[in-house]
């Protein structure tokens, strides 16, 4: 007993890093419970994807290939995932807390009458979980009783799984999705076009706060540095609220949680809400003219300076370095 099922989310017919993170967490959970680790892949025409996920050292892959699953929609997806959990004797359903993961897992938990713990950062030896709460002001130890349980994982908390071991068997599952579950329909997807790396997968992130003062300054002062470093651009909730940048750039408890190799915080005071989303970054640089700003309490390298002077200079110095 104690079998684990990973919901293997795919985007643009690929498995993003967040899915590989879920596989690692799922294997860890299975090791603790002494059960097997399975993966579920849902979609339309997904033979290749099911076959790919089978290479990551899971015991078996359940593939649900159905035209109604072409676009992710919570109703159909939740019905199919709940069916697998029930039919295959799953104890722990697990996925990364991406937009789809956050939308889907609680709905499945509702269908199953299961307890759910959100955005865990660790699994303890006794089967309890660690998760940040109060916008990162507290770390909670949480127990989930009963079976099945539903768990979402914070994308930065586990390393992505690598391919290896023998290839798992792929078992096709036919989902019975009733009319009510199909009630919602997909209308359109307005993709944020960007040549930059995705925030949650970037090696380097340059983020701006209210100190940037305007949307124009994000464009003319911050973006040149972002592009020169091949970085992703982030922002604080304050900068989003002020309308400088769209919300999908928001780093923080209510935005994206990131942990890049290098995080450069520009004109960011360091509200707890923001720190919760980036304090696990490997190296943090803060540039702020207020030397009392809380961001300096988490920064490895702090530069007390006017960003409008420091940023062009920074760009120049890095150019020198590269030549």
């Amino acid at each position: 007993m104690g079998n684990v099922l990973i919901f293997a989310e795919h985007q643009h017919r690929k498995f993003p890093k967040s899915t590989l993170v879920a596989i690692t967490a799922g294997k860890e959970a299975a090791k603790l419970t002494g059960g097997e680790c399975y993966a579920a892949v849902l979609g339309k025409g997904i033979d290749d994807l099911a076959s790919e996920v089978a290479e990551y050292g899971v015991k078996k892959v359940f593939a649900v290939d159905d035209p109604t699953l072409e676009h992710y929609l919570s109703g159909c997806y939740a019905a199919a995932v709940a069916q697998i959990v029930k039919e295959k004797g799953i104890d722990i359903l697990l996925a990364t807390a991406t937009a789809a993961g956050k939308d889907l897992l609680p709905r499945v938990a509702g269908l199953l009458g299961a307890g759910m713990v959100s955005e865990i950062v660790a699994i303890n030896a006794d089967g309890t979980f660690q998760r940040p709460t109060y916008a990162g002001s507290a770390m909670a130890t949480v127990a989930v009783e009963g079976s099945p349980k539903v768990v979402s994982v914070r994308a930065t908390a586990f390393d992505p799984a690598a391919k290896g071991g023998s290839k798992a068997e792929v078992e096709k599952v036919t989902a019975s999705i009733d009319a009510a579950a199909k009630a919602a329909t997909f209308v359109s997807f307005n993709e944020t076009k960007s040549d930059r790396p995705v925030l949650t997968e970037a090696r380097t992130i340059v983020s701006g706060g209210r100190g940037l003062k305007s949307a124009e300054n994000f464009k003319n002062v911050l973006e040149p540095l972002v592009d020169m470093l091949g970085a992703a651009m982030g922002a604080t909730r304050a900068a989003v609220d002020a309308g400088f940048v769209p919300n999908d750039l928001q780093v923080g408890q209510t935005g994206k949680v990131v942990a890049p190799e290098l995080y450069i915080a520009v004109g960011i005071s360091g509200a707890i809400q923001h720190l919760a989303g980036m304090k696990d970054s490997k190296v943090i640089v803060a540039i702020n003219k207020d030397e009392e700003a809380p961001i300096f309490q988490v920064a490895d390298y702090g530069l007390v300076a006017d960003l409008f002077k420091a940023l062009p200079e920074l760009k120049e110095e890095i150019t020198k370095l590269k030549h």
Partner: protein
Amino acid sequence: MKILVTVKRVPDPNAAIKVKPDGTGIITENLKYVINPFDEIALEEALRLKSAAGGAEVVLVSVGAKTSSEQLRTGLAMGADRAILVLAEQELDSLVVARILQKIVQDEKPDLVLLGKQAIDDDANQAGQMLAALLGWPQATCASKAEGLESENEKKGIPGIVLSGGTGAQVAREVDGGLETIQVPLPAVVTADLRLNTPRYASLPGIMKARKKELKEIPVASLGVDITPKVKVLKLEPPSKREAGRKIGSVQELVQLLHTEAKVI
């Protein structure tokens, strides 16, 4: 048309939260409480849908201790019509809250339930989706304003959720990498993200009027719902502290250190 909006009492997001030394909770002395900011956005949306539709009833519901009536009064002052407080002093998990809300929905029969996408205390982001599952209703989470908060529509107070003739709703959702639009038939559950609207403040006349509006208290025991939580917080601890590094004197020095010491550029 009837819209049910959830209102959770949470600590002020700007307050510094400290964990009790014994790990049983947070220090609540002198803590200011507010409506969960995402619920406030949900309520603003309901009020806008009401004026756009030329009338609707906006009913608030909160689950918690008697003190939650403060937040319900604030919601009534913003413009909601009446409020329900399900009195529950004990610890609940999201599934229990969803079951309680399910009961309220079965009694009230709203066309739309609006919730904040998450509460800023436990940051679970579960109750709305669980409620939709229990009811067998469609859900649209993380509703946003397709045109953005700088748009003319926002300035005019036009809702982001587009109702089609009282039978369906079109919702733009914030997802990874962009904005997805879905159509859901009513009744449905919608949860509000940050960029759906900018909530109004309660006006003085609104506050005066709110005193006379109905705020009905229901003991949770009278609902006949299983309120045993499956999820239990065993302990709270202060988060691990990251050590502050050092202050660097110049940009030149910073770049050198990032190159030779941290080896990140």
